[in-house]
């Protein structure tokens, strides 16, 4: 599959395909999934939909290298090398550290690695998420949407080819969510992205590729190729058709 031409970004990123083979999760004696294969095409925005408790967050954690007991799978990049150090992670909570200001939160990664933080680039990224004036603000003074934008800037600051997002917009009000979706789509255009969500319209709006995860043990159903490029209008007939197909796959239609 060929995804939309990458948008020009501040730093070039080598696209990377991610493959996961034979993923398996056993939790409390229950097999949530077994023998699951997933490929994230390089430079594509992939959305993973599914009912809660199906194991989609665990799948994302496996991709992020956050393995816990009971979960396993064979994970590598398209170049055959492990993914360690080439993934950025964005969670539902903004995970901002309350004792650091916005700028220091954005540069947390370099501080953890013992590198000198690139403040210039951090400020640039903050400007891109429209928070240039808040570099020295404390997180608790920001609104939920602003905090999640800081988290997005922190994710971009890591400058990794693969970005994994676990329902990062679900805690926000509708309008803020729409704005943040547009911003994420724009700024992550040249990365390999996996977005886990339970909102079919969000997936249809943002995804180059949409997978629906359902059943027990769970399997992945690909959605037929979606019309047009991302940031689709939910009013379009083709999106409506896809929406019905998703509901059917989720077992609700």
């Amino acid at each position: 599959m060929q995804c939309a031409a990458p948008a020009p970004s501040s730093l070039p990123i080598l696209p990377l395909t991610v493959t996961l083979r034979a993923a398996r999760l056993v939790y409390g004696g229950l097999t949530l999934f077994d023998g699951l294969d997933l490929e994230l095409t390089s430079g594509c925005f992939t959305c993973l939909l599914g009912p809660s408790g199906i194991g989609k967050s665990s799948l994302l954690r496996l991709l992020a290298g956050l393995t816990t007991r009971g979960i396993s799978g064979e994970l590598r990049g398209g170049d055959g090398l492990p993914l360690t150090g080439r993934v950025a992670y964005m969670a539902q909570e903004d995970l901002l550290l309350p004792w650091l200001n916005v700028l220091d939160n954005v540069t947390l990664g370099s501080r953890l690695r013992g590198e000198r933080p690139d403040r210039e680039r951090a400020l640039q990224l903050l400007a891109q998420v429209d928070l240039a004036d808040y570099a020295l603000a404390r997180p608790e003074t920001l609104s939920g949407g602003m905090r999640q934008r800081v988290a997005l800037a922190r994710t971009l600051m890591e400058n990794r080819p693969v970005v994994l997002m676990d329902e990062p917009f679900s805690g926000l009000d509708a309008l803020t969510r729409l704005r943040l979706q547009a911003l994420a789509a724009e700024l992550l255009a040249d990365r390999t992205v996996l977005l886990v969500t339970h909102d079919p319209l969000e997936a249809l709006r943002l995804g180059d590729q949409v997978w629906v995860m359902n059943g027990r043990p769970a399997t992945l159903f690909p959605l037929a190729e979606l019309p047009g490029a991302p940031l689709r209008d939910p009013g379009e007939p083709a999106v409506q058709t896809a929406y019905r197909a998703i509901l059917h796959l989720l077992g609700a239609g």
Partner: protein
Amino acid sequence: MKGLWRGLLTLAGLLSLWQVVVILGRLPPYLLPGPWAVATSLWRHTGLLLAHASVTALEIVLGMLLGVLLGSASALALGYSRRARRWLLPVLIASQAIPVFAIAPLLVLWLGYGLGSKIAMATLIIYFPVTANFYDGLRHTPRGWLDLARVMLPTPRPWAVLRHIAIPAALPALASGLRVAAAIAPIGAVLGEWVGSSAGLGYLMLHANSRMQIDLMFAALLVLATLAVGLYFTVDAGLRRLLPWQPRHPETVEPD
């Protein structure tokens, strides 16, 4: 402002109650001197009281510093090393079964009548609450932050995670340990003075008691209470300044 008035009113009420009990109970001054007698004594012996108070204050402050230092170091060792947890934690918990009061005479025997034994008492008495609170905070770093750090780090760097995430995240817990420490450190110091000393407010109280100077004893008690309350509020205010992100005490909604 309103709080200040309420405080003054409460103080005035307590003083009046005290005076009333003295008058109605016809209590002789060697059992319970009235507030006026205590105030007079406070005024007459200001120099003496201040001299002894400064000794006690020094014991408390040094004991606090030492206890917080040792407690924090122990908590960090427990939080960082599994071996320390396995060996140190049981000893730590078992040591709490021995009341500090019981070993006070030993400390005086070993460290003498001077400052040393009192500082040791104060240190011992605050060591456990500081260690327990800080260790508890270190154990409960929110998982999301640790996940974030794990993804950010290509190779594990436990010290960096401890320094940049786990320790700052545990500071509010350490702060509650410090508040407890500030409240009980004076107990340790005065206890040490009672067992054997030649200076300090505890010594002065015992001395005054044996010479039937009950008004002086009360004055010393008053100074000690002021010292303890002042220490607590100083520590509390300092911690609030240092940890501005710490959630405030939940405001209770009261119907007016």
